[in-house]
């Protein structure tokens, strides 16, 4: 059984439907990437899983249905989303941002340990822990958003366009950190990304979306080698 199992997901914003029956799955400890052009429904899929928009179809985590849950309950179930645009609490300090990420947790000591742990992984956040988060650079805010989501100790981390607006060298850094976290913590990840080449390097499997449906799926390696995918999404 997969960790996350989505079957025939349909949904959108009010009367305009964006998703027309998407099915995908993520296994325990796996990195899966979702590719697709603008408007294909990638972000909408993430928002539906997180409970930000209502949707039809089945979403299960460990076999238990999570569809229709409020976003905070989805977080409680073990899924954290790093939203597109990072969702920084601009006026709160870096440390407060991370504390907010632990909203669902009751174990103070564990939260403190995790803070230390993520400060080690993201040393630049440690240097700036008292600073308002809005003053961080884009790359630092992306790191903060990832660390904030991890404070929940999620079993599945959703990342929506982690490379958006970042310099290529920073993008590499972010992806390296995601890989490291996946290896060390065994956190499963579902990553939406436009930078297909880089994403396919760290993922084990991938789905390609087009106008709200899955048009191609397979191992990352097989998609890298597919001429159709390369022409359409990798641009070479």
């Amino acid at each position, binding site marked *: 059984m997969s960790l996350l199992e989505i079957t025939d997901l349909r949904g959108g914003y009010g009367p305009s439907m964006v998703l027309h029956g998407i099915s995908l799955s993520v296994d325990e400890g796996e990195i899966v990437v979702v590719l697709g052009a603008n408007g294909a429904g990638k972000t909408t899929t993430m928002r539906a899983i*997180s409970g*930000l928009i209502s949707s039809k179809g089945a979403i299960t985590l460990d076999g238990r249905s999570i569809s229709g849950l*409020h*976003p*905070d309950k989805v*977080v*409680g179930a073990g899924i*954290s*989303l790093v*939203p597109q*645009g990072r*969702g*920084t*609490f*601009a*006026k*709160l300090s870096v440390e*407060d941002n991370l*504390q*907010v*990420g632990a*909203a*669902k947790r009751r174990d103070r000591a564990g939260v403190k340990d995790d803070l230390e742990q993520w400060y080690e992984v993201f040393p630049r956040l440690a240097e700036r822990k008292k600073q*308002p988060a*809005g*003053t*961080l*650079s*884009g790359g630092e*805010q992306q790191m903060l958003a990832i660390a*904030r*989501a991890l404070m*929940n100790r999620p079993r599945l981390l959703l990342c929506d366009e982690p490379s958006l*607006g970042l310099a290529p060298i920073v993008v590499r850094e972010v992806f390296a950190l995601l890989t490291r976290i996946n290896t060390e913590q065994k956190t499963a990840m579902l990553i939406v990304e436009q930078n297909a080449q880089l994403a396919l390097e760290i993922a084990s499997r991938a789905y390609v979306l087009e106008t709200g449906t899955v048009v191609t799926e397979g191992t990352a390696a097989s998609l890298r080698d597919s001429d159709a995918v390369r022409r359409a999404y990798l641009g070479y």
Partner: protein
Amino acid sequence: MQLFLEYLFDGISNGAIYAALALALVMVFRGTGTINFAQGEMALFTTYIAWGLTTKNVPIILCLLIATGAGFVLGAVTERVLIRPIERKSLLATLIVLLGLFLALNSLDGILWGNENYTMASLFPNKVSSFVSVGGARLYWANLGLWILVAVIVGAMFQLFNHTRLGLHMRATASNRESASLSGIAVGRILMLGWGFSAAIGAVAGILLTPLSPDSLGVGEMFPILIQASAAALLGGLDSPGGAVIAGLMLGVVEALLSGYVSVIGGQLEEAIAFVAIVLVLLVRPQGLFGSKEVERV
């Protein structure tokens, strides 16, 4: 000197009330993004409840607690029942609903308690002789008690905001509601609590204000106060609790001194001071004295 001090004491008392209500307005604004037009009427409604209890010989301190609790429930229920279903649709709709609540509560007061004015008993010794002399001026216990109680409430709210988990979640929700819910905060519950706290503060303010002058409890009591409190909230910066408190005090003192020393203003033009403040703030510094422009790098 003596006159100046008496004006000043009055000003601080009014200012403390403006400050408390402005703080309540800011708490709602930060969570919901609207000025709660019904804030004053909620306070008036709970003040009537407290007054009604005092006429039944309930001890005044108990009246205060009951009315504050009633205010909390009134605020929380308003958020849950009236605001939450509407606010997703539009900000304007929310404002209209709050205006409606303003009128409804005001009329309800009239139906329940009539259009007469009443004098309310004070929490503090309130005789003509209950004062201490400060520099020749009379500082009444009622004023001093009011200052202390408002200071305690404001202090408690800041403690809550800045040093508790609930306060952190409130600040996070005010900063970015979607991101707060994605971090696992039950945003609806936080907003409901915010409305509850804000109406509870209003309830205390109403019970402190009303006994200061005789015959002041009436259906028209709170509207002018709400205007002053809104001016203070705007002056301080709608998203700044500290700014609201400071601006409330400033407004109260300036108003008392101006109406004391400038006879044209005294008695008739006091409310104009608030409107002048509102217009000036909007023209010169729309984010208020302590409010922030959005800082966000992307």
